[in-house]
Structure formats: structure tokens, C-alpha cells
């Protein structure tokens, strides 16, 4: 039994934490709702520096050109990103986009992974649809083969990082019922392809997304990633990795929220003394710290089972995200309440952190959906 980070991961954590602390001002500047003229939704310079530091490479295995890629590599990186409230799209360009190309792509396609790791290429996964909610197998978008072309038609919803992406990984159905796992393919679509229109917008917790309309979008057959109709297992695995990363990111944000709250309780004076001297508030702070450690253990469980059997993996990850969903909501709401009005202001760091925590629950399956998945996996 050993819960310490390896020397390499400890070094990665130290380097990343130092970098994010030293660049606090630039990071904070890119997290303002008011600055919506930034059509990237993040800071391109920060992105380049993260790549130079090897942070993106740490998310990929050696076989894929990186130097990490295991569950605890993901959690080490994303916990730090969460602590600093980083909005740069590592989840979308690297874990989802890069991860799927690394798993499904042929040799020419896989060359793109190198550019992702180097920071030169952005990706977005265009999978969710207006009617799919959190169901991974629900795909109404169609792909029809016509001679040597493939024609896509449909609509994709809340595609995070779409406008910045050089390529979109678009899922479409080649066969089967709208909710069947079989029959889903993934296509590599350059963003400027005719027939693809984007309607972009900022997100409440920052970053940007877009609604995609696919109107007779024509692709060469070489745009398909992997075999026809067989993308679901890879999508599921990419999603598992993304969920572990997102859980760790939320844990990091919860650490910052509790740290800010503790500091405020010790310094804010009302009724002639620090408000942290009131027992009613002390107990609530204690509850947050108890839940924070629960969340930390849940992330360790999830990361430690990323390579376990499919059932054990899925069960542990659903458990972690359900727990983080509950504990995260508590930490976000209580941190705001214990601060009072100041935490309601956009200017104060906690506002951004609380939004990151709560809005994470709206990606890949919310607290209740994770509970249902956990029950399903237990029964299976």
C-alpha cells in the first residue's frame, strides 16, 4: 500500500503548480465573462507554454508519443488545473480528441497526435446531440456512403472547443437504431469543410462551445477513424478517461474553494471577531473538509481502476463522479454562503472556481446519471 506520487509525478505536480502560480494573472484574465470577444475561450500563450512544459505529453502513453497516460498521470495534471481554475481545453483537445485519434487512427491520422502533444493542434469531440442528454449511444446524425464519399447530416450540441479546433471528431450513425451501440462511426472533419456550420458561444464556467449543423457534409472515405460502425468501444474508453480527468479537476477546484473559505473565516471580522470563531461556522467548515477527503479518495479509486476490467472500471468511475457531484455541490454552495456577498462577485476568485465545480456536473453525465450507471454496473 503506497499513496505517494512517484518521483516523476511529484516533479510534474511541482512544475505545473509553480507554473500556474507564476501565471496567475494571465490565467485569471482569461476567465472573465465580460471578455467574450476572445473567440478562442482560452489563452493561446498559456496553451503553448503548457505544451512546452510537457503537460499535454503527460496525458499520452509512450506508444502514442507521450510519457505518461496512466490514470494517476491524468489525475496529477488535472487536479492542478482544477486548483488554478484553468480553462484551457486539455480535456477536449488532448484527452478526448487526441485520445480517440491515438486509439482509432491509422498511421497518417495518428501523426496528428504529435501536433496535439506539441501544442500546435486543437481538437473537439462533436458527439452530443440535442436529444442525447448524457446517453453515449444515442446518435441521430447519419453518415451515408455514396461511392467514394461519405455524407453527414445532423446536429451536434454544446461541442466544447469547436471554434478553436483544427479538426472536429464527428460521430455519426452508419447503421442500427438511434440508440444502438453498434453502427456509430467517428469522422475526422477539418473545421472549414463545406456543409459544416458553427454557432459559437461562451460557457458560463468559461471556455467556448458551439452548436454544429451538418448539412450534406461530404468527406472522403479516408476521413473515417477506425472501422465503419465500430467506434462505440473507443468512445466509451475515451469517456472513462475524460471522466477520471474531470473528477480530478473538480477535486482540485474543491481544494481551492475550501482553502479560500478557510482563509476568509480566519480574516473576516463581524461582531468584533473573526467569523471563523463562531462554532456554527466552524462545524460547517469541518464538514467541507471531511467531504473534500472523501472526494480525494474517490478520485484515487477511479484513477486506480482506469485499467481494470470494464465492469470494475465503469463502476468505480461512476461512483467517483457521483460522490464528486454531491460533495462538489456542497463545497461550492457552502463556500459561497460562508463568504457571503463577496463570493457572489465575478471579480473574486471563488466565483470562477465555484462555477467550474458545479458546471463540471453537466459534462458526460450528472450526479443522478452516475448513480444510475453505478446501479446498472452493480446489477450487471
Amino acid at each position, binding site marked *: 500500500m503506497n499513496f505517494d506520487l512517484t518521483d516523476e509525478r511529484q516533479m510534474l505536480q511541482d512544475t505545473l503548480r509553480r507554473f500556474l502560480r507564476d501565471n496567475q494573472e494571465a490565467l485569471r484574465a482569461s476567465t472573465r*465573462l*465580460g471578455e*467574450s470577444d476572445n473567440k478562442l475561450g482560452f489563452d493561446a500563450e498559456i496553451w503553448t507554454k503548457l505544451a512546452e512544459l510537457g503537460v499535454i505529453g503527460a496525458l499520452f502513453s509512450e506508444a502514442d508519443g507521450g510519457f505518461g497516460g496512466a490514470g494517476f498521470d491524468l489525475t496529477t495534471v488535472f487536479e492542478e488545473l482544477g486548483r488554478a481554475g484553468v480553462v484551457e481545453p486539455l480535456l477536449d483537445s488532448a484527452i478526448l480528441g487526441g485520445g480517440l485519434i491515438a486509439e482509432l487512427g491509422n498511421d497518417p491520422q495518428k501523426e496528428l497526435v504529435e501536433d496535439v502533444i506539441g501544442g500546435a493542434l486543437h481538437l473537439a469531440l462533436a458527439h*452530443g446531440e*440535442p*436529444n442525447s*442528454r*448524457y*446517453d453515449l449511444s*444515442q446518435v441521430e446524425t447519419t453518415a451515408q456512403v455514396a461511392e467514394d464519399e461519405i455524407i453527414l447530416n445532423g446536429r451536434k*450540441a*454544446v461541442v*466544447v472547443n469547436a471554434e478553436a479546433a483544427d479538426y472536429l471528431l464527428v460521430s455519426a450513425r452508419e447503421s442500427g437504431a438511434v*440508440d444502438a451501440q453498434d453502427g456509430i462511426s467517428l469522422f475526422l472533419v477539418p473545421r472549414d469543410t463545406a456543409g459544416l456550420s458553427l454557432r459559437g*458561444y*461562451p*460557457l*458560463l*464556467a468559461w471556455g467556448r*462551445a458551439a*452548436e454544429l449543423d451538418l448539412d450534406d457534409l461530404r468527406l472522403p472515405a479516408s476521413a473515417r477513424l477506425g472501422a465503419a460502425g465500430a467506434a462505440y468501444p473507443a468512445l466509451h474508453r475515451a469517456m472513462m478517461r475524460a471522466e477520471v480527468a474531470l473528477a480530478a479537476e473538480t477535486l482540485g477546484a474543491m481544494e481551492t474553494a475550501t482553502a479560500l473559505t478557510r482563509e476568509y473565516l480566519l480574516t473576516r*471580522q*463581524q*461582531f468584533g471577531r473573526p467569523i471563523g470563531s463562531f462554532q*456554527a*461556522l466552524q462545524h460547517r467548515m469541518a464538514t467541507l473538509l471531511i467531504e473534500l477527503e472523501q472526494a480525494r479518495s474517490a478520485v484515487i479509486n477511479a484513477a486506480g481502476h482506469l485499467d481494470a476490467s470494464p465492469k470494475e472500471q465503469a463502476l468505480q468511475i461512476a461512483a467517483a463522479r457521483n460522490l464528486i457531484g454531491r460533495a462538489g*455541490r456542497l463545497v461550492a*454552495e457552502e463556500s*459561497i*454562503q460562508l463568504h*457571503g*456577498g463577496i*463570493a*457572489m*462577485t*465575478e*471579480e473574486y476568485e471563488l*466565483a*470562477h472556481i*465555484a*462555477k467550474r465545480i*458545479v*458546471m463540471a456536473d*453537466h*459534462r458526460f453525465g*450528472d*450526479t*443522478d*446519471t452516475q*448513480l*444510475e450507471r453505478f446501479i446498472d454496473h452493480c446489477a450487471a
Partner: protein
Amino acid sequence: MDLNYSAEEQAFRREVQDFLAQKLPAEMADAMRNGKELGKEGHEKWHAILNDQGWLAPNWPKEFGGCEWNAVQRHIFEEECCRANAPRIVPFGLSMLAPVLQKFGSKAQQDHYLPRILSGEDWWCQGYSEPGAGSDLASLKTRAVRNGDHYVVNGQKTWTTLGQYANWIFCLVRTDPDAKQQSGISFLLIDMDTPGIEVRPIILLDGTHEVNEVWFTDVKVPVENLVGEENKGWTYAKYLLTHERTNIAGVGFSRAGLDAVKRMARSQMHRGRPLIENAHFAARVARAEIDLMAMSTTNLRIISRAAAGQAPGVESSMLKVKGTEIRQEINDLARRAAGAYALPFVSEALEGGNEPAMGPEGSAAAAPQYFNNRKLSIFGGSNEIQKNIIAKVKLGGGA
């Protein structure tokens, strides 16, 4: 025990319903239903419609041009307005300042200010909280020094709601720095156009501008703008707070919010079925509704006691806590119902523009409202302060 409204009360309810059906502009109700901001003109327009009907001041005595409705009638009116998605009445002049002027103001102040509140000529805001005086309001530091026929005011107020629209502010200021905290405070009316006043916006975490900082630098205020006696302001402030707490339970908001959640959950598919049929989601909605049903009866119990002339006591603190908890839970349900469509922040869709929302009706405002309404348990005496009041009354000793 009779849970039914009397025949007169039911007739009154129909009268309110008819009025709303005829006079509430459809685009206004639509904007409210979708969580859009109304803006200054929108609020003024609705006030003018109510004023034409003679219903702008439900709580004022008739001698001042009010309806003099009792607590049950006011409740029915508020309930129907919420059900119809009517805008709320902006409370600062009408239900906060006016009762203070009516009870403690001079005849000259009543004659001058009250008609201007009804006509919409003046928009009032509240100068209470300060950066160092939130829950501990009596520690406020803004100074007013008497100098001949005027006071000179220096200091800073904060959380001033809709202060950007206001031309007048009522302020608590310290006139005797040597007296014990509550005893050295006075209640001043200040023209926002006076030199030395600066309003600075505070942007909230959902991107909205509804509160402000108001800075005072050597602001000259005529002594006739003092309400009541010097150094008695705390008494008036406490009186005002009892009026701020009417409709504290927000039953109407919760009902409208719950309806919106159900509408969205019917339109959203989850695992091939409407979300409303999902057992976990349905259970969450049901729990909120069960809590709301009971709380709404608690509210009515207190209202009918108030209508019979009994002053509400600790119960208004209980209602504030429970009412805000339920509203916040309903905001949380709306956010959940929206699914991934809770993520976008389309400010054009919220500011009354024509930009269509991305997801189902109500999804654009769901997450911003969830965050914005975290304020409910903070303002108007935080829920912790309310629990202190309850504990002090029921357990005795210090708060």
C-alpha cells in the same frame, strides 16, 4: 380550521386574474418566464400599469394612495402575479422607504416623496450594507457631520441593488461616533445627483449588473432630508426590515419555478423517456414540491395571523430560511433538467435580445439563475443570522 379562502377572497383572486389577463403585456410575461432581465424601462412600464389600476402600493394606507389590502389579499395578489409571470414590484421605494416615511417622516416629506414614488418620478435605492458591515450592520461607518443647515457625508455603501437606475438613496449614516453602535445612527435621504457621489458597478458571478458600490465624498445633504430624529435611525431601519420581510417565503416564485422545471423535464429525453418520468429526477422534484406545499401553509398561517393584527415574530425568520432553501433547490433542479444545455452562457438570450436559446425553453437562464440565487440565503439578513434570531428567542441568551 378551514383551509379554504372566503368567498370575498376568491372574488378578489378572480379580479386580480382578470386584470393580469388584460393588462400584463405578453412579451413582458414571456421575458420573465425565460429569466430575462427587464431593464429600467420595463420595470417603469409595469409600475405605470399597476399605478393606473391603483394597485402599485398594496401595503400603503388609503390616505397615501395605497390599496390598504390586508395580508391575505396581498398574498393572493403576489401569488397571482407570480403565476402569470408578472414582474415583481421593485420594493425599495414602495415597500421599504414608504412605510418608514408614513410612520416616522414629516408631513412635508410625506407630501413630497410619496406621490413621486407612485408616479415613478423617483427611483429609490437602499444604502445600508458597507464592506465592513454586512451581517453586523450596526457596525456601519459612513459618517454624516452636521454643518449648519446641512450634513457632510463621507463613506461607502455596497450591494446597492439597481442603484444604477436610482436618483435617490436612503442611507443609514453614523451621526454620533461616540455613542454605542446602534444609538449613533441616523436615516438620511440623499439625492444621487449631489456632487461627490459615485456609483460603481459590481458584476455578479452570473455576469449580471444588479448591485453597486456607492461612494460618498464630502456630499452635502440638507438637514431637512433627515427622517425622524437624529441618532434614532436604527429604530427606523428595524421597522423597515420588518417590511422587507413581507413575501419573504417567495411561495409564488417557487411555484412558478417548479412549473418551469416540470415543463423542461417533460421536453428533455433521458434514456429514451422524458426526464420527468425518470425515478431519480421525479423524486427530487417531488421532495421539493412536498416541502413547498407545507411551507406555503406555514406562510398562510402567519399571513392570516398578520391579517388579524398579530405581529409576526420568529416565524418570519423561519419562513426566510425555509423559503430560500426551497427556491434554491428548485433552481438546482432547473439546472439539472437542462443537462448539457446548462453549460452555455448566452448573454443575449438573457438580456432581452432576440438571440434564441440553444436548448429547451428555460435552459439558458437555468445555471445563471442557480448561481444568482445563491444570494437569497445571504441578503436580507443571512440565513445564519435568521437562525441566530430563532435560537435567541427559543433558547435565550446571546445570539
